[in-house]
């Protein structure tokens, strides 16, 4: 193994100061300018064990393909927790300097939270720089740093669209709304016609959905932030428009506010309480499994638009594979992260067996993928709908370096205000204030607008 990658273990007297446990506790891998093919070949023939943390069910399939291609490398897959618990475990292990995985699933919105603390390995020297053309533009923009670093390899995405109950729409004479205005009218009409049914459910603590909505509306609250300089603009016109739109519909009582992914919400979806689900590209197959009793009644369509005739969307969810720079095997880890997300067989299995919506251009244009007809949607080619939506997602959207905190603060301010009928637009300012205060404690220079 190249001695440059050797992990230094200066952990001995670390007890002496808390400093020792944090930034200075260990020396992460300094990626070289370039890694030659010979070095890569040598590493890939060195017996190695990699730790890979993910909660994607059935990822063992992709791992097996990798191990087949590189028989000297063994990958241990661990599903320690989902979402917040997953990141909490990774962060504590990274702080301790040991026990962290080599490679982990990291959602797009949290990639910057790991790169700002210098925990990610820049994958450019390991060949990732050449992958740009394979991925959709706006997706690639999510994983690259200000200086062109490649912090992670995209695995799947979630362009936002709309799933709707065609039977309920027909029964009440509702046209598929193409604008948010039409959507609001439909919400009122539908709820008046059948008080048991809501056109949609607005999950008031779902920060990720709200962010995607801001994205669609053209708000870019953290756009222009760069390292220690943080820009926050949550009170923009676009953000106010989105907020007051949902606050009004909730206040009128024509949209429900159940927490999503809760038992109650699953039951309601089965019962037909919601006539639409505004969701991401991973939603269609998800719904097919969770609301099986409503098979055949659903269809997919693009999201309603703020301006008639335009076609724009945002993104909700999706993950990457990131390599942590504490790894002892940077080459192997980097190759693994690239392999499972670019190898044709591996990515195809992700799209067609695990139903992760692909970020690669090749698959989005693959007729076998887009031509898939889903029974649950009356034989509609749902993938095609979302592949088209994917093209309309703006690349102009930047995550904050602490997006989980942003979501938590959203739930406590704007989300609660919408749910409880308080002044939600004023709550946007509370949200911004909380974030600005937090950012200052974290040492950022905050510029509010």
């Amino acid at each position, binding site marked *: 193994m190249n001695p440059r990658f050797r992990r230094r273990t200066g952990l001995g007297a670390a007890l002496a100061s808390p400093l020792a446990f944090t930034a200075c506790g260990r020396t992460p891998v300094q990626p070289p300018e370039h890694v030659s093919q010979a070095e890569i070949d040598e590493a890939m023939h060195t017996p190695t064990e990699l730790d890979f943390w993910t*909660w994607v069910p059935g990822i063992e399939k992709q791992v097996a393909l990798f191990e087949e291609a590189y028989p000297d490398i063994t990958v241990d897959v661990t599903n320690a927790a*989902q979402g917040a618990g997953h990141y909490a475990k990774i962060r*504590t292990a990274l702080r301790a300097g040991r026990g962290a995985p080599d490679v982990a699933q990291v959602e797009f919105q949290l990639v910057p939270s790991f790169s700002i603390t210098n925990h990610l390995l820049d994958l450019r020297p390991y060949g990732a720089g050449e992958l740009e053309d394979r991925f959709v533009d706006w997706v690639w923009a999510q994983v690259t740093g200000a200086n062109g670093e490649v912090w992670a390899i995209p695995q799947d995405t979630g362009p936002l669209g709309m799933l709707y109950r065609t039977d309920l729409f027909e029964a009440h004479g509702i046209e598929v709304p193409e604008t948010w205005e039409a959507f609001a009218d439909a919400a009122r009409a539908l709820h008046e016609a059948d008080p048991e049914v809501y056109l949609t459910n607005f999950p008031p603590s779902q920060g990720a959905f709200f962010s995607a909505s801001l994205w669609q509306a053209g708000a870019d609250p953290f756009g222009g932030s760069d390292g220690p300089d943080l820009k926050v603009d949550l009170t923009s016109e676009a953000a106010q428009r989105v907020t007051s739109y949902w606050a009004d519909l909730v206040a009128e009582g024509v949209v429900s506010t159940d927490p999503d*992914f809760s*038992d109650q919400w699953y039951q309601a979806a089965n019962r037909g309480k919601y006539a639409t689900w505004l969701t991401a590209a991973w939603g269609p197959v*998800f719904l097919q499994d969770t609301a099986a009793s409503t098979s055949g009644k659903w269809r997919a369509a693009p999201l309603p638009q703020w301006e008639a005739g335009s076609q724009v969307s945002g993104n909700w969810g999706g993950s990457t594979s990131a390599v942590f720079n504490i790894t002892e095997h940077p080459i192997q880890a980097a190759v693994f992260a690239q392999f499972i997300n670019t190898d044709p067989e591996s990515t195809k299995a992700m799209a067609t067996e695990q139903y992760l919506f692909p970020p690669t251009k090749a698959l989005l244009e693959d007729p076998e993928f887009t031509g898939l007809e889903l029974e649950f949607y009356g034989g509609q080619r749902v993938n095609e709908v979302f592949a088209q939506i994917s093209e309309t997602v703006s690349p102009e959207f930047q995550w904050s370096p602490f997006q989980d905190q942003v979501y938590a603060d959203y739930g406590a301010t704007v989300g609660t205000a919408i749910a409880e009928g308080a002044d939600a637009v004023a709550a946007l300012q509370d949200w911004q204030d909380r974030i600005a205060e937090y950012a200052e404690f974290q040492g950022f220079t905050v510029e509010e607008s």
Partner: protein
Amino acid sequence: MSATTPDAGRRPRRAKRSTLLTVAMLVAVLYFLLPLFWLFVASTKSSADLFSTFGLWFAGENGLFTNIGNTFTQDDGVFARWLGNTLLYAVASAAGGAVLAALGGYGFAKYRFKGNQAMFMGVLGAMAVPSTALAIPTYLLFSQAGLVDTPWAIILPSMASHPFGLYFMRIYADSAVPDSLIESGRIDGAGEFRIFFQVTGRLLTPAIATVLLFMLVQTWNNYFLPLIMLNDPDLYPITVGLANWQGQASASGGASGDLVPLVVTGSLVSVLPLIVAFLFLQRYWTTGLVSGSVKQ
């Protein structure tokens, strides 16, 4: 000292049994058993029935054995591992903790030495600090010692960070071990530890059984510590494992298999051993609790 069992007629009963009081108490018992009854009923249902049929009565088909079977085969039978881990953690920390508490409690009760009182009060006072304060520091320290993600990360802290075992043993030893017994041992020329292991220690048996049982429950039900300390699902105890399934169930709905009935059934299976332990050991723990305070 009289180690009577609580119901062995400690005093003559002349009072007539009251039907009214009995009925009132049975109503209270109903309230306390209701959620457990729900848990049992729910374990017999499929996911669909769980949400669509009346919660407090059985649905048409009995799926209990299907659910139990599925619980034990999900993820290559990881649930059985969790059960085994829980048993290991609980038994090891309870046994270790009871020994430490018995020695320490006896020492605090029967010996005068400088700092006795201060140390004892310090141990009791420490429990006011919530364990969230300790989560990160303990993790970092354990990580340096290479203990994180090993069974030791659960067993060692569980043995010593629950001061009540010590407190209880001290009170018990204070009243159950007569000083004269120690004195006569000394006159016979026995060393302090020989006196303890051969004579006085035996008097502590009911208290040791009690501490053992209560520490067993504590570690069996502990959630926070293993949640922080363990990353390998193969090392999880039941509580963390079930919470992980629960998270998976709500994050993915039906997409990764129907986990909701497994969480419910797994909860039932996890509670059963403790209930059985309480039933069968009832005589011991109630004896320990009561006789600890009998002697004036």
